[in-house]
């Protein structure tokens, strides 16, 4: 457990007044407040640090204790014993930012000096929202083709969840009230779930559209014919027009991926024909191709 320089965190001198501390704190809080830095873990960490620094430095008694024992924090316990009769009451007086777990999420150093709760003595107890939790859920593309229910275990809690079909890779959803417990009766935090969708299929996905390549034999491409193409939920027969070129694209409307939270609506499937040139020709085939070439050039 290392000593934490709260003055350095707030970027102030040790000689600053209480008003200057408040000013420095507000300035930094505006920069790092989680509401202004969504999904930014670094900002959240920094915000907790400045919150903790403010808890200590903005209260005269705690600041005095910190200044006296700060670097020798191991002696703080003795200090506490000596002051036991003062019945130090650890409850918040307000003024600290606790909305994101900052109210109860202090460093080991802080807890060693001031205990687990807020460092402020006071009459009124503030309610704090519990900590927001972030989690990542890995799913296969096939899993998100249909809406499905899952039970996740996060921080020892079982959470039943409905995952709507069509969820995107990297998409984040908020599940209210499934984060950390509130403090002093405050509301629970939220769970932020980010989806990582792995694709092990032959389809490529771009939002709601799917893309695939279907081989077409040379003769069907020249003379016309039929090919069977796979869609996400089965197979379809496609008519190949005579004289189809390599790279020709066909669109199968409504055969793409489900549209997120729009039940029964689907994107499109784009199929690219890949004309297969025959290899390992027999002598007879070579002769016939040569004859065709002659005909073409004559």
């Amino acid at each position, binding site marked *: 457990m290392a000593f934490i320089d709260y003055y350095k965190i707030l970027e102030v001198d040790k000689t600053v007044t209480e008003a200057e501390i408040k000013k420095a704190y*507000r300035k930094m*809080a*505006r920069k790092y*407040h989680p*509401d*202004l830095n*969504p*999904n930014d873990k670094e900002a959240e960490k920094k915000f907790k640090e400045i919150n903790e620094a403010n808890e200590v430095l903005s209260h005269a008694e705690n600041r005095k204790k910190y200044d006296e024992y700060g670097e020798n924090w191991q002696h703080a316990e003795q200090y506490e014993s000596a002051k036991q009769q003062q019945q130090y009451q650890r409850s918040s007086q307000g003024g600290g*930012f606790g*909305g994101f777990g900052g109210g109860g999420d202090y460093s080991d150093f802080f807890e060693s000096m001031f205990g687990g709760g807020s460092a402020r003595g006071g009459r009124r107890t503030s309610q704090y929202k519990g900590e927001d939790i972030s989690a990542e859920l890995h799913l296969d593309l096939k899993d998100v083709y249909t809406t499905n229910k899952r039970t996740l275990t996060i921080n020892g809690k079982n959470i039943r969840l409905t995952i709507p079909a069509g969820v*995107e*890779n*990297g*998409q984040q959803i*908020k599940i*209210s009230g499934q984060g950390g417990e509130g403090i002093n009766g405050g509301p629970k935090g939220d769970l932020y779930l980010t989806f990582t969708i792995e*694709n092990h299929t032959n389809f*490529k*996905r*771009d*939002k709601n559209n799917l*893309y695939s390549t279907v081989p077409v034999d040379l003769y069907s491409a020249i003379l016309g014919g039929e090919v069977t193409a796979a869609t996400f939920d089965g197979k379809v027969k496609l008519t190949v027009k005579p004289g189809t070129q390599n790279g020709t694209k066909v669109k199968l409307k409504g055969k793409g991926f489900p549209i997120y939270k729009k039940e029964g609506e689907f994107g499109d499937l784009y199929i690219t024909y890949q004309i297969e040139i025959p290899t390992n020709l027999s002598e007879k085939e070579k002769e016939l191709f040569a004859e065709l070439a002659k005909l073409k050039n004559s």
Partner: protein
Amino acid sequence: MNIENLIPVTALCTYYKVEMPFFGHLNEMGLIEIQIIEEIQYIHPDALYEIEKMIRMHQELAVNIEGIDVVFNLLQKIDALQNELIAVKNRLRLYES
């Protein structure tokens, strides 16, 4: 929506220790929508998450209503850009795989 599913603004004032005019100003700025039923002001519960954010900005960061409006516009832009970034990354995967 049934009236029992709406939240009276007075209840929010008590819970969050905010004065009534604060919600009135947010409504005037178009940041929230107050419904008036039989002369009582209500908020839709879906708006609560954003309202809590606005209250935190006001109380904890001393941001005024105009400032909240600016911040919310910028946050919406960030949100749109983040969604676009996800879409672009996913599209890039099409060519990388």
